[in-house]
């Protein structure tokens, strides 16, 4: 397992081009290439496997969004970037939980990524807001909205799935749900 992980480490260029072209294969390779590095860091700094998963996925998402935004300039190796981002996220989490952050055991070079992490936190806040708005919406509204906006189902499909007599009824139901959702979402 370990060996196959190492042998398939993609080059930095491959990763960037792959992500820009929405290549699932590249994302897969990227994810597997550096997971062990972050896992090691978290495990050796008061974390467990689940922490590692959360932190690492957040790190990958930050990288992904940055590349997608098109303003990604590679000033270091991707490995260093991912490590630095994950390290920053984990340190924040540790200090939030007021756990010991005194001596951090490092395994790689680190460079400043505070800005990227903070940008991401802003985005993440709106993500969390939407998530909680959806959670407050209740069924069947939540599923209808999710099916339509996230899973891109057609109104026809939704109509059949929920057993509405015609699509107009489904549409009306959807807009009712949407109105409520917007109300919750835009609540200060």
């Amino acid at each position: 397992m370990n060996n196959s992980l190492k042998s398939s480490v993609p080059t930095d260029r491959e990763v960037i081009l792959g992500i820009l072209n929405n290549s699932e294969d590249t994302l897969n390779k990227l994810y597997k290439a550096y997971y062990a590095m972050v896992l090691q860091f978290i495990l050796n700094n008061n974390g467990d496997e689940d922490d590692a998963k959360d932190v690492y996925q957040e790190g990958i998402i930050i990288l992904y969004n940055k590349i997608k935004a098109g303003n990604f300039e590679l000033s270091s190796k991707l490995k260093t970037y991912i490590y630095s981002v994950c390290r920053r996220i984990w340190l924040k989490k540790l200090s939030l939980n007021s756990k010991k952050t005194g001596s951090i055991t490092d395994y790689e070079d680190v460079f400043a990524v505070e800005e990227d992490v903070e940008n991401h936190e802003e985005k993440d806040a709106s993500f969390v807001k939407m998530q909680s708005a959806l959670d407050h919406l209740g069924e069947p509204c939540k599923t209808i909205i999710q099916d339509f906006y996230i899973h891109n189902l057609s109104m026809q499909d939704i109509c059949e799935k929920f057993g509405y007599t015609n699509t107009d009824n489904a549409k009306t139901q959807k807009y009712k749900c949407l109105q409520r959702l917007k109300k919750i979402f835009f609540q200060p």
Partner: protein
Amino acid sequence: MRNDLELDAIIEDYLLGKLNAQEMEAFEQLRLSDATVDHKVVSHKFFLASMDTFAEQLRLKEQLSQIHTEIDVEGLAATLRPHPSRVVQLWRKHKSAIAVAASFVVLSLVSIYSIQHSTQQAERYRQLSNKVNNAIKTQNSLIRNIKHNNTTSDKPNNQNSFGGTGFAISTNGYILTNLHIINGADSLYVQNSKGESFKVKSVYTDPQNDIAILKISDKHFSNLSSIPYTIKRNTSNIGEIVYTLGYPKDDAVLGEGYVSSKNGFVGDTTQYQVAISVNPGNSGGPVLDNNGNLVGIISGKPDQTEGAAFAIKSKYILEAMRAIPQDSLGANKLSTNKKSLLSGLKRTKQIEKIQDYVFMIKAY
């Protein structure tokens, strides 16, 4: 309420570009005239964008979680978890630094080894002290052997003795030679061109430059007349004609050649290389230029190259002389500033003058 829902539907269709041209125009008109509608459009646009990013992130997270299930987390965690042993922890933490240090050590060891090895292979330095009494020896050695047995009949036959050359650096009996000739010897004798032997003792040794200074301690020794040669202070140039007088056999032998390199054995800057054929016994012999200036001391030759020898540079003679008390050398010592008595003489006359100052060194 009903109207609101219809308005929402139209707004969404408008934003998603689902309206036809006519409806589009009508709606835009409405948007311009009614600020509330316009506000609703803007807020819905923002909402849709938020929903889009939300959807995208959600899909990405799902994708990542999917990939995550393919990884053997347990196995990886087991190997990466902090190890109970401090040594292993240290090793993991400083793996790269340790690797760099280790490779550096290996590299330097290899290079040291290869340097030694190549020097060994290239050439070996052969010191030119004459080892006498060796069973496998040429005729010359045998003759010496017999003579030694005659003169020192009380000594055991198989005792090793060494011979070399030395030269006077003062009129009162100080003689300079190579350290390797006299190293480890119990007793030392010098013999002049007339065949007279004097007992000497070593007063100064310089292992760095392979120089030794001996002092004749024999009461039969009478002071020499003034030293005919002087020391050359500057280094000699390549091509300068030089010659040496030495005792590879019982009679003095002249060897003539030129300075062939400014450095000696594998770039040794304390020596010259000279193109003079020398043999065991030449060690310690003076190297003089045409004007009778002392250029160096023969000290060895390369193992594989014929017709070349190494000579210690004359400035180390000066250094060695400074190391012994100046009074003891007397007034008529070897110096740099006097004019050489040999200057302008023919080679035969020069040899005639210096042969009384060049001695055979015998070490027992």
